[in-house]
């Protein structure tokens, strides 16, 4: 099965471009040399280089401005799912600022899907909190959270545009987000999402559905978010748990 491997010219071009970014330590906003000089230096055809840059724009690595050349794109905001940091806190750790626009905050009654999620009957009261989250002033995601109303009565009193929802839950209600699960897939922008996030309708987006449980293991928040993939990268670290560590994890009775 071992064979001579020759990457296609466009793949070679993409690797050379990525290598160029690494070697020259280019930062977001830096301009790439002209197409012509890169083609000459690497012996590539224009079409190979163009399809490589087009692809790297889709990857969110490069962006081009018509007539002005190709630039290194704005660094994506990295959301690490370990440790349950709120968006605002993890962004500030990366030196970025999260701002929030409250789109909707109201009490609703569970429909069939939500009732099933919360293990409750139809009509069980929930708070619905829809927010547009922005990083450094640029729209990142539209997030819609659902919380059991009986546990967060008076949620509308709090300023959810300035503080983090998790912080309010903890400080005002003594509810500590303890663990959760997040499912990531792809969706395509609806008219509303497109308008809110300044993108084209039908553009691919992250679709992130998460469930967060409190310190008593009860479902505290069910959340659905549509996020721009050119602005977001989701990371996680897998670790092997050693036998010793595992032993230490057993709760004492």
């Amino acid at each position: 099965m071992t064979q001579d491997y020759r990457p296609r010219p466009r793949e070679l071009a993409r690797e050379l471009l990525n290598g160029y970014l690494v070697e020259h330590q280019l930062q977001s906003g830096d301009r790439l040399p002209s197409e012509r000089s890169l083609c000459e230096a690497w012996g590539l055809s224009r079409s190979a280089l163009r399809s490589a840059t087009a692809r790297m724009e889709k990857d969110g690595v490069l962006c081009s401005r018509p007539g002005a050349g190709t630039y290194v794109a704005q660094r994506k905001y990295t959301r690490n799912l370990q440790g349950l940091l709120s968006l605002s806190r993890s962004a500030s750790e990366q030196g970025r600022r999260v701002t929030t626009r409250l789109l909707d905050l109201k009490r609703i009654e569970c429909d069939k899907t939500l009732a099933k999620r919360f293990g409750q009957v139809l009509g069980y009261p929930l708070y619905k909190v829809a927010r547009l989250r922005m990083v450094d002033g640029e729209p990142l995601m539209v997030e819609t959270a659902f919380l059991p109303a009986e546990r967060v009565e008076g949620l509308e009193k709090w300023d959810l545009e300035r503080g983090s929802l998790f912080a309010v839950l903890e400080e005002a209600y003594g509810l500590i987000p303890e663990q959760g699960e997040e499912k990531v897939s792809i969706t395509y922008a609806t008219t509303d999402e497109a308008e809110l996030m300044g993108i084209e309708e039908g553009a691919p987006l992250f679709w992130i559905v998460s469930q967060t449980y409190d310190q008593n293991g009860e479902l505290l928040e069910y959340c659905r978010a549509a996020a721009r993939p050119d602005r977001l990268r989701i990371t996680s670290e897998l670790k092997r748990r050693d036998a010793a560590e595992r032993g230490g994890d057993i709760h004492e009775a």
Partner: protein
Amino acid sequence: MRHEEAIGPNSPLYLQLRELIRGKIEGGEYPPGTAIPSVGTLAETYGIHRLSVRSAISALIGEGLLKSVQGKGIFVVGDKLERDLETVGGFRQNMQAKPESRVLVKALRPAGVVYGALLGCAPGEPVHYIKQVSYVSGEPVSQEETYIPEALLPNLKQVDLGVFSVYEALEFYGIRVARREQSLEITELDPMDARLLNVEPGRGVLVLSSVSYDEEGRAVEFTRSYTRGDKCTFSVRYQREG
């Protein structure tokens, strides 16, 4: 548990053959991940009945040293870690069924600047490059590219990656992955790669990039996979720290 038995000239032939094969596995003549000679070949080589060959082999399959794969042959299984080792964090791929993978490319290439930086080796150092496509019930669901420094796994060439995963191959040769850093992004594929995955142009695919590290913190493998968003989701569990 293997019971030590003295094998002598008077031992049954299947026992003699069993120990002969065991010796060749332990001595490295049949390396992990590769197929041993067929039943017919072994029967002919040693002039014994196929039934004896079969019982020798099935005993070793029972011990977990060999693995029989329908239509492909009998393969040597290396030392494996406990399969169900607990892990924390990381993305899990949720698919309807276990995918089957087909290897498109398995070759050596220089690490280059990009993969050299990811794997901590010089750009000129050779790395294994593997490109695979995974299918679930005949439908392509993901495309995967893997890079491993050749120096870490010189025997990879011989391992049948249609039978064993790259991670199994690493384990067979004593490389234990302790940690894996993963990141999930979305991109749109070139028309050619889109066709390979049967994805319409303009549709997004999930890109999972991961670097695995061994216990010494050495990068041992980089993988990037492109997965169809309509066929699979990724999920991750998280926990408050401290």
